[in-house]
């Protein structure tokens, strides 16, 4: 949660590694998020300068992808599927109960910084709906009980 402000040199290093690519913007954004858990505001002028694009263009790209963050997430990220198949299999109820239990809204992070909850639209697990994803782990047939275990595991 409380990562130090990224140093300009570190951002520049990441930029330099990607500038040779064709269409380097998305790889740069991914690399920044990988390194810092989010895309630091301090990186914006460095990116626009390096790629010679406007800040509006950068904003357009970052805001198009929901997975790019402007601040770090909690230690774990829980994604709950809200697409049609999961909805029809109780996904909505599961999501509402989970949010209520944690006392957060979508995209919110628990006060202890353990878990950030995000919506996701289809994890490709429709046959095992309702589905969720905790960090890199995809999970099928998640009910409230299983969710409780997962959250406990994550320290929420």
């Amino acid at each position: 949660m409380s990562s130090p402000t990224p140093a300009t040199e570190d951002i520049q290093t990441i930029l330099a590694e990607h500038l040779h690519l064709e269409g380097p913007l998305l790889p740069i954004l991914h690399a920044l998020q990988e390194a810092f858990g989010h895309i630091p505001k301090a990186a914006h002028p460095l990116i626009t300068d390096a790629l010679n694009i406007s800040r509006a263009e950068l904003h357009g790209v970052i805001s198009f992808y929901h997975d790019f963050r402007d601040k770090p997430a909690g230690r774990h990220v829980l994604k709950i599927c809200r697409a049609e198949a999961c909805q029809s299999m109780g996904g909505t109820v599961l999501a509402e109960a989970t949010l209520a239990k944690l006392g957060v809204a979508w995209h919110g992070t628990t006060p202890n910084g353990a878990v950030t909850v995000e919506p996701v639209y289809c994890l490709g697990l429709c046959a095992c709906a309702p589905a969720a994803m905790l960090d890199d782990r995809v999970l099928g047939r998640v009910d409230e009980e299983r969710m409780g275990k997962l959250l406990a595991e994550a320290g929420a």
Partner: protein
Amino acid sequence: MKDFIIPDDRDMGTPARVGAPVTLEIDGIAVTVPAGTSVMRAAAEAGIQIPKLCATDSVEAFGSCRLCLVEIEGRRGTPASCTTPVAPGMVVNTGTSRLRKLRRGVMELYISDHPLDCLTCSANGDCELQDMAGAVGLRDVRYEAPENGGLANHFEARNTSGEANPAWMPKDDSNPYFSYDPSKCIVCSRCVRACEEVQGTFALTIEGRGFDSRVSAGGAGDDFLGSDCVSCGACVQACPTATLQEKSIIEMGTPDRSVVTTCAYCGVGCSFKAEMNGDQLVRMTPYKHGKANSGHSCVKGRFAYGYAHHKDRILSPMIRERISDPWREVSWEEALSFAASRLRGLQAEYGQKSIGVITSSRCTNEETYLVQKLARAVFGNNNTDTCARVCHSPTGYGLGQTFGTSAGTQDFASVDHADVVIVIGANPTDGHPVFASRLKKRLRAGAKLIVIDPRRIDLVKSPHVEASHHLPLRPGTNVAVVSAMAHVIVTEGLMNEDFIRTRCDWDEFQHYAEFISDPRHSPEATAMLTGVDPEELRAAARLYATGGNGAIYYGLGVTEHSQGSTTVMGIANLAMLTGNIGRPGVGVNPLRGQNNVQGACDMGSFPHELPGYRHVKGAEVRSIYESLWGVEIDPEPGLRIPNMLDAAVDGSFKGLYCQGEDILQSDPDTKHVAAGLAAMECVIVHDLFLNETANYAHVFLPGSTFLEKDGTFTNAERRINRVRRVIPPRNGYADWEITQMLANAMGANWSYAHPAQIMEEIALTTPSFAGVDYALLEEKGSVQWPCNAEHPEGTPLMHVDGFMRGQGRFIITEYVPTDEKTGPRFPLLLTTGRILSQYNVGAQTRRTDNVVWHEEDLLEIHPHDAEVRGVAEGDWVRLASRSGETTLRATLTDRVSPGVVYTTFHHPDTQANVITTDFSDWATNCPEYKVTAVQVSLSNGPSEWQEDYAEQAALARRILPAAE
């Protein structure tokens, strides 16, 4: 678009293409269009308007709205006509029942998220969404808000229970001229694309995705004013709804008719439609068929016309005995007879040559012609000069000497064919923004750019544009840099020998080549002087010589030097050496400062030249005018502006008629100008406002704006554009009428009833204008001189088969350093320029909302220079030169190199010209504004001169209440 606009002004949907003809059939009509044309545009050519929302012909097709679907025989589905190119033999149907149903469905979805407040909407009657809803026959919207889940729309601020709608965003009114109302947005992206493709600023984007997509200026949290937006109006022009709307339309309503006229700001000379609602001007929109601007505009021409109705404008003539008296409003008769008798009295006492005129580069050709005629035919002398003296007189001289014409060689459209562009001593994105947009478009398409400028101007690096080479030279070393480039081209054998042999004087070239090959001109030898990296300069010279079509664009950073004319010749040499003359995409192009500075020069404003650049010494030329005017013309050249002022101080020059020009603020060495004006006994200022010069005037004749008169302006590409009267003159008379009345009060017997008659006289007497008349201008829209029997439709490109003077002439360009030198007392070099939102001395733009972008002149100083002087951002600093001193605020930036400081001259409180010296171009007396040795130090407030000046100005501007 609505039919109050000129009929052929229809939106064709997608841009025109150039290509081999392709014939297809649309709704049974055969139509032939160039290959690459969209089906939508082909249909429009055939008179069929396919419904559309996201397409407009100023930007490339986008294919997002799905309203323009068509059926094509032999193809599956219903492709979008905007993104589908035509093919030979294609058979297209645009109105089948299947298409109608699809379109109605699409429209229903659009309208489900759009307020139905058409009657009170500012775009009522001028809304493409409204038009399309009508065109597709939408009668019902079945979509409703979800029963328990919020509003699911973007346009209602609250639901019926009073809960806020999180998707609703308030209006952004931060821009003074237009508002952004997100609740009306249909996210067609036309604004975003116009900002990118037309203007080239990339200030807008679509943020988010899907239902959350919104137009956003800048990044998160920016508003329009805080973003990179330059307020050019392209987005507003492209918007099909009331989302981006001029505030003037919101206040006054939509227009019912329009008049095509020409902008009165810079030398680009954009064509505009002045849109009227009754007798009120409600909006200026760029005219698509204007050949200088092709439907684009900048913040000045598009929005900054409010000065015509500013409270400072003077509408009655005024006179006073002495400049210490307050002004007295009088009738036109009294003012003119006062002026006439004073001028005649001065001539009787001090001689025929004791009075003169200054013509205006902001007035029309016809008006300028009359003012110089006043001097030559009525005063009986050649004491006429114009503000081109202080800007592009070296262009006239330099290009006249080398090529044979005193003007640029190309039209603006030529830049679309350039491969390498050199911009030298110009800042087009600020000074000539509409041309800059065209240039940037070409650069984005792959042309290379070389910038030669002491400052890192925006073109050096801005989104999607980057100069291959920036040569940040020391101010005053232009000749050395241009010569070094020529040295590289000649010594490395990169010149176009064929061109030189066939088009130029070979002997002169030999002589020149010998001169320029001398190692003292090499980039390495001159680097100490110019501060330019020799390798970078060599690379730039090679690029220009070998990169394909090479075009040079230059501005006042070239001319306003003690060697201004030499640099112009040096530039001409570069173009001749490389054969970059006489075809599209090449050439030597001065970017002229004022709307009609080209015209003012053409019309014989200079003391040594009759109209058409013909020397007064030529008896045969004089005889043309002598027989027509029935007077004898003085064969001796008259006085230039600086000579007039010197003569005034000496006591031999006593009276001046100054039309539309503020010499006190714009001319160098303000104190000397003030002393000259104060020494005169009759100064007549003919202007819109009590300008700074008027503080020293005895007669004030109120002028008319470009909206209030007929005439023509000639832009930087020699294009003669019509100016048309939009509203009656608020001061009672157009400027040409006032000059005529003054002439008649002095005994002339002029009887022009319309500017068209003045143009007839110009055409009759000036060979390069022989074919110009108002009927031709009506027919063609505009025409580029020379326009005569040889070129009946004008001349977009000059020197195509040969130079106007016969053979191109290489002239030796010896670098002579200016006498203005830095030293221990004045260690920094000051150079001056302008910014986008303001124009010249600011008389017009300071009286508009443009001041939100620039409320005062700032001194740009490099952080190193600032640090050693203890200057921080925003501090008041004293700027002193050998001539004088002033104070202004400092801003720290590395746009300027260490040792160089920069400021603008838009505000009279700053009076940057108190600082500038009276050094000037050796050939033309064009002042050396661009180089002044200065010192900068911290200061507490205004200098003594500023205080004295403010006091004098306040005193001089008193107006007595009108006598009953």
